[in-house]
Each structure stands twice: as C-alpha cells, then as structure tokens.
C-alpha cells in the first residue's frame, strides 16, 4: 500500500504540482484546498477510528502556512492530535515564521520555491525519523525489504554490495525522479569522497545486471539516472 501524504495548499497550481510529484515518487497524495477542509478531515478520522474512514492514516502532512479558513499554524494542534508529522511549505521565509513553525512542532520548514528532489528527500528524512518510512519497496518483480536490508527478485534473494543496496534504495525511494551523478555521490559515498562520477556509473551497471533493471534504471542525458516503474 502506498504511503498517504496530506497536502494542504490553497493555490491549485502548486497543489497539483506537489500531488503530481508525490504520485510519481510512489506516494498517495490527499489534497485539501483550505484549512477548514483539512481540519474536518482530521476530526472525522478521529471520530471514526483509525481504519474506518477509508484507507490508511496519512503518514505526513505538507502544509502551507497562509491558508483560507484556518492557517497552517492553527492547524498544528489538529495534526498533533491525529499524530501526523507536519512539514510546512510556505512562501514566508522570514526567520520568525520559521522559528514559530518549528517551535509549534513542525518537523521541517520548506520555503517556496522549492525543488522537487529537495522536497522528496526532506519528506523521506522526516518519515524515517518518525518511524513511518516504508518497510517494503516494490518495483516490478523486485522487492526491497528496508528492515531486513535484503533484496529479492521473483522471490529469490539477490546479493548486493552495501553501496549497491544504498544506491538502489536512494533511487527507489524517490522513483521517477532524476538524480545527478554528483548528488548520488554525495548521498551514498559521502561528501568527503574523492572519486570520479565513473564510480556511480559502475555501480549502476552492477544494479542493472543483477536485477535485470536495464529498462528500469534509465540514463537521463545531461542529468543522471532515474528509476522508473
């Protein structure tokens, strides 16, 4: 089952943008256009019990601060009651608002305009920190068990080197999003690693071979690699 993400954003264009990207990255976005609607949804959830109101509890909420009806800061209480971590997504980039947001209990504060990859990575961090990250990632016939750190293909275990596994998880958890070689180097080999981007290419080659992902991990010209399902 896909991880549900609440998106509370009053600008339809931005809301659609976020949803589009969340969907592509393998999440299930649940958009709300104003504060009151989101509040109502949370209250309903509360009353009906966790399972009743159709689907899983959202694992995370992306909330704009300036909202009609009830603003993002005011909504915090409702989210905390429902035990949903919150990332504020707002155009207000003054320090005071940031401090206010984080003090109120937000997990993160992202200032608009943001990049898709940044949003996804920060979401992932929050999900991991709050113990809500996915246990399993399924891509075609390959299953990644994030608790066991194991990868099976068609039920058979595939032996991956640690760095290959990290690379696979990175690409798979932001699927459909392109990573540049530098980004991958930084994220997996670490910022201090002094190596060539060729290293990434070699590991990608290994993954493709071991998992039969020649069509799944695609080379995007001038950018890098992208895992597509």
């Amino acid at each position: 089952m896909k991880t549900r993400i609440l998106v509370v954003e009053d600008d339809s264009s931005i809301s659609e943008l976020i949803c589009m990207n969340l969907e592509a990255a393998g999440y299930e976005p649940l958009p709300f256009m104003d504060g009151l609607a989101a509040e109502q949804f949370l209250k309903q959830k509360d009353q009906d019990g966790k399972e009743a109101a159709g689907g899983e509890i959202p694992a995370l909420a992306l909330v704009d601060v300036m909202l009609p009806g009830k603003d993002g800061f005011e909504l915090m209480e409702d989210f905390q009651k429902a035990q949903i971590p919150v990332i504020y997504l707002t155009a207000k980039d003054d320090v005071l608002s940031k401090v206010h947001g984080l003090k109120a209990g937000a997990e993160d504060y992202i200032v608009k305009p943001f990049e898709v990859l940044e949003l996804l990575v920060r979401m992932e961090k929050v999900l991991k920190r709050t113990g809500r990250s996915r246990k399993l990632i399924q891509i075609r016939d390959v299953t990644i068990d994030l608790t066991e750190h194991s990868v099976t293909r068609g039920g058979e275990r595939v032996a991956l080197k640690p760095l290959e596994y990290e690379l696979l998880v990175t690409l798979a958890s932001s699927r459909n999003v392109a990573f540049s070689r530098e980004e991958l180097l930084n994220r997996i080999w670490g910022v201090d690693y002094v190596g060539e981007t060729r290293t990434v290419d070699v590991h990608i080659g290994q993954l493709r071979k071991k998992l039969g992902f020649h069509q799944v991990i695609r080379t995007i010209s001038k950018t890098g690699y992208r895992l597509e399902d």
Partner: protein
Amino acid sequence: MKLWVKLALTTVLVLLAATLSTGAAMLYQTLLYNQEKTMESGHQQLASTAYALARELENGPLTGYSEATKNSYVNYTMKKFGASKYILIEDGEVLCNMTPFDLADSRDERWQQQEGSAVIQKSGEQYILIEGQKVPTSGGSSYALVLVQDISALYQDMKRQMVFGLWILADAAAIAMLLIFLMTRRILKPLRELQKAAMDISEGMLTRRARVRTKDEIGVVADAFNRMADKIESQVTELSQVSEQRRQMLGSLTHELKTPMTSIIGYSDTLLHVNVRKEQQQRALWHIKEECSRLERLSSKLMNLMGLYENDSVSMEEISMEELFAHVAQMEKYHLEQMGMRLDYRCSMGKIRMDRDLMESLLINLIDNGAKASKAGDEIFLEGQGNRITVRDKGCGIPEDEIGRVTEAFYMVDKARSRKAGGCGLGLALCVMIARLHGAELEIHSKVGEGTKVCVVFPEIREESIS
C-alpha cells in the same frame, strides 16, 4: 549674559543716573536756598544791629573818654546786641572783635558800603559766612559792622543728605535687582518649558507639546510652536503610514510573486527531472504558461499603480460622461458577453475634468470586479448621476468585516476564486488611487449574497461644468 542680568544692570544704571542727577540738583538747590536764607537773616540782623548801633554810637558818650572806657563801652554795647559774632570796625581799625575769627583785611572796601555785601569763605573744614555793612552814623568816625557766622552745618547737612540719598539709592537698586531677577525668572519660565518641549520633540517625542498658558508674547510663541508640532506630528504620522503601506505592499508583492514562481520552478523542475505521465506533462506546461501570464498581468497592473505616483503622466480634460460610458460599454461588451453577462448603463452627468485613460481604467476595473463576483446571466449596472458614478452587481458580495480591507493592495477576499478569475488583488487599490487623482472618493456598499455597489463620488461639481 543672561537676560535678567542685562535688565537688572540697565535698570540700576538708569536708577543711578536719575537719582544722582535729581538728588544732586535738589541738594544743591537746597544748599543755595539755605545759604540765601542764612545770608538774608544775617543781613537783616546786621542791618538792624547796625542801625541800633548807630543810634547808640551817635547818642553815646564816646567822645572824650579814654580808649579803655571807649572799648568797654563798645564791648558792652555789642554784647547788648547779642552775639559774639560781630566785629566792629572804626575807620578801618578793628574796634571790637567778639568772634573767634580774625578779620584778614579790616580796610576792605566791601564793608564800607551802605548796602553791605556778603561772602562765604572756606577755612579748613569750616564754611564761614562774612557779611559786612557801614554803620549808618551821621558824621564822626565811620564805623563798619561785620557779621561772621559759621555755616558749616549747612554743608554737613548736605553731605549727610547725600549719604542718606546714596543709601536709599543702593537699597532701591538692590530691591530693583531682586525684583527684576524674580520677574524675569517668572517671565522666562514658559521659555524654559518651550525649550524643553523643543528638545523632547527633537528627540522623537512627537506628541509632546509646550505647556504654556500665559497670555503674553511668549504664550503666542508657544501657541505657534504647538501648532508647528501638531503639523509635524501629523506629517510624520502620515509619512510613516505611507511608508508602512509601501512596506506592506512590497511584502505582499514578493509573496504574490513567490506563488507563481513556485509553480513555474516546480513544474519545469518536474518536467526536467521527473518521469510523469504524458498528460501530466501537458498539465505542467499549461500551468507554467498560466502562471507566466499571471505574472504578466501582475506586472502590468503594478506598472499602472507605479505610474500613478507620478502626477505628470495625468492629463486632465473636460470629457462628456455619456461618451465615456458608451466607450467603456463598447470595450466591455465582448468580454461580458463571453461570460453570459450584460452591462446596463445610464448616464445623466455632464462633463467632468478627468484623465480619460485613467477613468476608463477605473470603470473597467470596477465592472470586471462586478463580473468576477457575478454568475452567467447576471447584469451589471453602470450609472452616472449628479456627482457620483455607481457600478452595481448582484454577485456574491463582500463580507462586512472585509469591506474596509478590499482596497488594500493584494488583498483578496476569496483568493482561490479571485485567482481563477485572473485577479491579483490590485484592481481596487488602483481604483482608489485614480479616484484620488480626480479628487474623488470610493464608497463601497456590499451585502453577502445580494451584491456590491461601488460609488465614485466626485466633489460637488461647479455650475459651469454642468452643460
């Protein structure tokens, strides 16, 4: 030099000059008068004594006696006439001198005259009055009687009075100085308050006023000062309000820019890096275009708004309202028809001085606002009567507590709806500004669910402008 010192010095000097001159003159006059009196009484005494003495000497048995007898007789006679102040001279020789003085020259011609003469002589510390006259005897020896009198007392009197006068003068001067000191302090007290007030105001206490209630010149100055402070305060407040408005507008502007920017950056980033479905790619492109045109609208509205700050660009001319309405209706016709609306206009106004482009823009803005609030099939009314133009719609209306804010730049009652209709929250702010340039005010009446009425109220039109 302090004011009170100046005043005190001047006063004391004047006082001194006045008292000294009058005092000295008076003292001198008194002295002269007293001298004269003394001299006169001396003269009378002398005359009567001389006369009596003459009788005595004529009848007296002086001839034939010895010198000694004669002397004692004369002495006796002189004593009889009293006073140890006479000197009797016989033929130029002192016959009898009962005074403590010696006559310098007994042959002096002055004493030989019938009428007598007087002289005041200073001898040491003493002032001596010497008067003499011929004793009117008939025949025989010629006698002269000289009266010698010490009149130092007169001079001492004058000296005493002078000292006394000086003491009075000193006292008066001291009292005058004290009074002047107290008075100037009292008079200048409001000045000090004025000074303090000025200092306070210069340090930013703009509400500070000089608390001076005196009715004198300083009171007038204080009044003027307070009026100036009022003016400054109101101007500073106005300025800070304007700059606060500008600041808020800039804040809103950056926020307003961020939203389309977020979309544009986000969608293009998505198109570049994310594998999305074909139709989503189309949506992304559409959004990018849409947001760009939103930015474009925003910038042209802003240009208008900024342009209006420069009054030079406004060209006022007499324009017939009817003509203007017809033109506006023409321009809005197609636009409104597309949305299934109709503009109903009526005009009974004459000519008004205005900038045609700006006024058109104002009316179009108001009509567009009406159209945004209305739904298909609704009518929008444009009426001109007397000194007010009214744009009325039967749309959704504005919540009461938000009416006051709708003219703020970037304020939108219903953001989502307004955005969808292509609004950016600047229309009414622009309208207010245009109205102000024409000396007019914008009045907004609205009820949720019933519609909105916006009036442009011009100042009372002068007779000649009504054709």
